[in-house]
């Protein structure tokens, strides 16, 4: 049984490898985090525009469906028949008037309520269910649904705080910034990484790695740590915004800064420079805005490439990164084409993201045999967890672990928050 004694440091600057590999911990995460008082990103309003439209998704490993009911409201429930625990809806998306489990054809309405059971009265008065069987008590388990400008979140916990409070002002502002116009889904991509889900959650909060691991950023001049930028968190430090401003450094300054790093700093140019061209779409200068929402959502703006990622744990040793590529409904055709080109930057084949798959796998592999040793998280200094207006930092990882410890019930006395 893991306890608060597992932490060698009260500022979460040391994370024991055990937390990435222990199956008992993984089971507890599913219960206390994913089925606990967090809000998980489910999908988008834009994916289910019409009555009866549905999509399958996950909260942790729990399969869920969300759909639009006859009143136009979005409803979400666990995709599991009350009868024998089978998946009710097997398709990933579609349109239906009801959800019917194929096993014994129990039927559920778009509100998740149980509407019909075959042979409920038996045949010729024999068999079937007792008269006292309560249909209302056997619907699909509902989720509370929250909607931030078309981004749908769900929670299985009745005591979860309101979604907007959960997100906090700076994160809410980022979501509203990204979703300020109706979105259009351009497509999906998926990546199966042989590593623990938290390695990916950390990766998205790790500003330090970006221009070192993803050399394309620096080599081809898309993003450098010498640009003005930083990290901003909610008051509980569980979420994080990593941000940077376009063209806010000079080649000369960057050349000097990267001279000591083993990163090519002679800044090559592309034959097709539009791949990295940034067309500002807002009143700010942000060309990088990566918003990680605890535990498993990431809203991403890299230049004009827009996406939302869902981190889907698949056992202690594997994670799926499910990414929805976005544009805006009113994008002119040339902007859609630009976004489709910039989609080359992200995803499993992304020019500035493919390396994450490898980094997570080598971290997972090498840490597995030695569970009591730890990682080191001290970029930007140890101690207090707070926002930074510089980029060589991994402080938000400690915020992640702080809230993680609280939810898992392993927060040590006197720990930073």
């Amino acid at each position, binding site marked *: 049984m893991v306890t608060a004694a597992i932490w060698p440091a009260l500022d979460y600057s040391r994370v024991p490898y055990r937390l990435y590999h222990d199956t008992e911990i993984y089971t507890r995460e599913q219960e206390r985090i994913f089925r606990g008082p967090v809000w998980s990103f489910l999908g988008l309003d834009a994916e289910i525009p019409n009555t009866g439209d549905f999509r399958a998704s996950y909260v942790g490993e729990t399969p869920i469906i969300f759909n639009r009911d006859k009143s136009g409201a979005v409803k979400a429930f666990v995709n599991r028949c009350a009868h024998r625990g089978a998946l009710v809806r097997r398709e990933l998306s579609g349109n239906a008037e009801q959800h019917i489990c194929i096993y014994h054809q129990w039927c559920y309405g778009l509100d998740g309520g149980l509407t019909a059971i075959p042979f409920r009265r038996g045949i010729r008065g024999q068999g079937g269910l007792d008269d006292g069987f309560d249909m209302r008590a056997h619907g699909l388990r509902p989720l509370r649904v929250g909607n931030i400008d078309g981004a749908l979140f769900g929670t299985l916990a009745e005591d979860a705080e309101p979604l907007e409070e959960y997100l906090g002002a700076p994160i809410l502002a980022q979501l509203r910034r990204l979703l300020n116009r109706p979105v259009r889904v351009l497509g999906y991509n998926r990546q199966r990484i042989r590593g623990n889900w938290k390695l990916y959650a950390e990766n998205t909060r790790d500003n330090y790695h970006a221009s070192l691991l993803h050399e394309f950023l620096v080599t081809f001049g898309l993003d450098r740590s010498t640009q003005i930028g930083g990290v901003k968190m909610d008051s509980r430090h569980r979420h994080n915004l990593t941000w940077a401003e376009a063209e806010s450094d000079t080649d000369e300054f960057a050349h000097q800064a990267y001279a000591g790093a083993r990163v090519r700093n002679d800044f090559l140019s592309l*034959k097709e420079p539009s791949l990295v061209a940034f067309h500002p779409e807002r009143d700010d200068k942000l060309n990088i805005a990566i918003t990680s929402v605890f535990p498993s959502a990431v809203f991403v703006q890299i230049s004009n490439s827009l996406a939302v990622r869902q981190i889907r744990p698949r056992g202690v040793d594997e994670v799926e990164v499910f990414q929805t590529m976005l544009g805006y409904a009113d994008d002119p055709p040339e902007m859609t084409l630009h976004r*489709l*080109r910039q989609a080359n930057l992200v995803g499993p084949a992304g020019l500035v993201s493919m390396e994450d*798959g490898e980094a997570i796998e080598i971290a997972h592999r090498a840490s597995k045999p030695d569970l009591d040793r730890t990682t080191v998280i001290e970029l930007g200094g140890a101690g207090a967890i707070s926002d930074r207006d510089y980029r060589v930092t991994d402080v938000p990882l400690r915020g992640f672990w702080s809230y993680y410890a609280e939810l898992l019930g392993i927060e040590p006395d006197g720990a930073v928050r």
Partner: protein
Amino acid sequence: MRADRAAVYDLLAEYGALIDAARFDEWLGLFAQECGYQILPRENLDRGLPAALIFCDSRAMLEDRIRALREANKYNIHTDRHIVGLPRILGAKAGGVLVEAPFAIYQTDQEGETRLFATGLYRDQLEPVADSLKIRDKLILLDTFAVPSLLATPL
């Protein structure tokens, strides 16, 4: 038609072999000067969604992709093995040929462990250039759209 078929076979065989040997400059040489290359998850094709995993709508973009692979990207150390199935010749127009061929690509790591990395379908628009066939447009429909680990070397 007979000669065309032999030329199509030769091109597809060469295509896989050059990637497997990591001879990417010669692989680029199989494409026409004006060309396109994209890898589309079947999930997106089925829903009429355009976003691809790799989307190069010019030769310049394809050359950039190979240059990035060499100069910037880091990925799992591995070798590829293309198994390209029998092509179907779907039609000929204006001297060009439309071809479909199924493929499977196995990846082997440094310690000799092999796994199926990807399977899917090539849909190639080929055109005659001088006395050979070149790829004008290659659409790779990816069945294995839950990409194992990452996708760096071209399919």
